């Protein structure tokens, strides 16, 4: 159980352009985002002594960023072998690292040439080692193919349908249209969604997130330090990481997972809400990991915003729109803003809680839920201003 309620804060955020072809090294993207996060807080590189990142596919080691930007002495540098499941866990880890006395001001980043370099959606080595020998030889290779298998289960059990998935995609696109960072800002109607190409039934093209070149960084400090820095502190009220039994042998594998209608969220909900001293009804804005439309439904159910099986209906009727009861993915999410493996959700949460979200600002936002992960393991945080 996370026991550091409001003791640590996000003091700075930084990001690069999100593009399809950065024309740059991943290291330089990471360094740019980290420098911007440090500068955003009003700190200097000399103040930074810790780095945390994750590197499931394309990335660069934390020490290479520390080297490029000239950190005097990194006392902590950790690269988790993880995917989007870690995008909130690295922020929680930064707080734990400071609490333990291993570092004082810690930058968390994710950097990738996710479109021009290593494409996560592009398939794998054709030699199927390890657990992959039981999936890839059957042409079950990409993450959209993995998650579509989960989505079918929800459709079988609860009758979840394309219109419900489509409302998620259309809603997030509307938000992206107000976000200067977003890669996809063209209008999308429900007809556009329904007519988008079927990639892997039941997923259409617009059920699947973008592939992005870019980087995001988040600076974590002690809360009392944050109050003396340049920006309004965003406090980490609570958080959790985990999943259930049989999380699988890698991030694709869920052969033994008990129930593909429900993901990691139901297993971390108690820890998350107890750590924050809040519940779903206390959340003003939600930034939900949307590598696919369907992953949103499982997380809403798992975290208790609605009952199991009711996630599809929950998202209908404007409830998750910017002016709805639960404004969600206000920057456009991974589906329309960009895919920096979930860390871009944390940046948007910080902007909402600082009142810096411009045309997409949710009035009076005081609390924000961020989540990271779609399948058997993941992480989430409750942030507040």
């Amino acid at each position: 159980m996370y026991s550091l309620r409001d003791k640590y804060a996000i003091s700075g955020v930084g990001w690069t352009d999100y593009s399809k072809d950065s024309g740059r090294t991943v290291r330089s993207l990471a360094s740019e985002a980290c420098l911007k996060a440090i500068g955003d807080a009003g700190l200097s590189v000399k103040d930074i002594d810790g780095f945390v990142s994750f590197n499931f596919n394309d990335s660069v080691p934390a020490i290479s960023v520390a080297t490029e930007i000239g950190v005097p002495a990194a006392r902590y540098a950790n690269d988790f072998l993880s995917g989007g499941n870690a995008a909130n866990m690295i922020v929680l880890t930064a707080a734990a690292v400071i609490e333990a006395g291993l570092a004082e001001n810690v930058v968390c980043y994710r950097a990738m040439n996710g479109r021009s370099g290593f494409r996560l959606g592009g398939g794998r080595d054709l030699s199927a080692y390890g657990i992959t020998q039981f999936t890839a030889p059957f042409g079950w290779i990409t993450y959209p193919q993995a998650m579509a298998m989960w989505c079918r289960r929800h459709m079988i059990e609860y009758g979840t349908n394309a219109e419900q998935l489509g409302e998620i995609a259309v809603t997030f696109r509307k938000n992206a249209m107000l976000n200067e960072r977003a890669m996809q800002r063209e209008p999308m109607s429900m007809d556009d969604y329904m007519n988008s190409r079927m990639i892997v039934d039941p997923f259409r093209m617009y059920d699947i997130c973008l592939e992005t070149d870019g980087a995001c960084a988040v600076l974590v400090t002690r809360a009392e330090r944050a109050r003396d820095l340049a920006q309004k502190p965003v406090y980490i009220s609570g958080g959790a990481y985990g999943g259930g039994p049989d999380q699988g042998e890698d991030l694709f594998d869920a052969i033994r997972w008990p129930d593909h209608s429900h993901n990691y969220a139901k297993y971390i909900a108690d820890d998350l809400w107890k750590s924050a001293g809040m519940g779903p009804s206390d959340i003003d804005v939600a930034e939900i990991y949307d590598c696919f439309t369907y992953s949103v439904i499982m997380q809403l159910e798992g975290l208790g915003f609605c009952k199991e099986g009711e996630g599809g209906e929950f998202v209908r009727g404007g409830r998750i729109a910017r002016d709805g009861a639960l404004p969600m993915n206000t920057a456009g999410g991974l589906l329309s803003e960009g895919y920096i493996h979930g860390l871009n959700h944390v940046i948007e949460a910080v902007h909402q809680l600082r009142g810096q979200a411009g045309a997409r600002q949710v009035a009076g936002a005081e609390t924000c839920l961020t989540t990271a992960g779609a399948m058997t393991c993941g992480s989430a945080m409750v942030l507040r201003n």
Partner: protein
Amino acid sequence: MSYPKPLPVLDPETRPFWEACRQGRLLLQCCAECGHPRFPPTRFCSRCNSAKCEWIESKGEGTVFSWIVVRHPVPRDVYAQDVPYVVALVELAEGVRIPSNIVECTPEDISAGMPVKVVFRPVTADITLPLFEPTKAI
């Protein structure tokens, strides 16, 4: 021409499974201590942690737990001729799930819980894949 699709790379735990497939048999592990059946193969039983295991022959009968229809080929050059194809999680009667393809029917024929049975398809001299087809004539 060499086989263009992903091929399993056998390891000490999985070799008995793939060698049995070549002989037209579908093998699963069963814990010799607690009787827990398991797939995919591992050295230790996840229920009791015993390393003692027996290989049991599956009847090769199961039902469709979930399925997808791949319509966009990835990698394109490898699967362009195959789409649309069906990948399913098949729940075997022995109580474990196995990923495979459903063949000998169209994607529209597939439904949840549909009974299927294993068929073996050699793809190289060394590798035979266990696929599944509908138990009842479509």
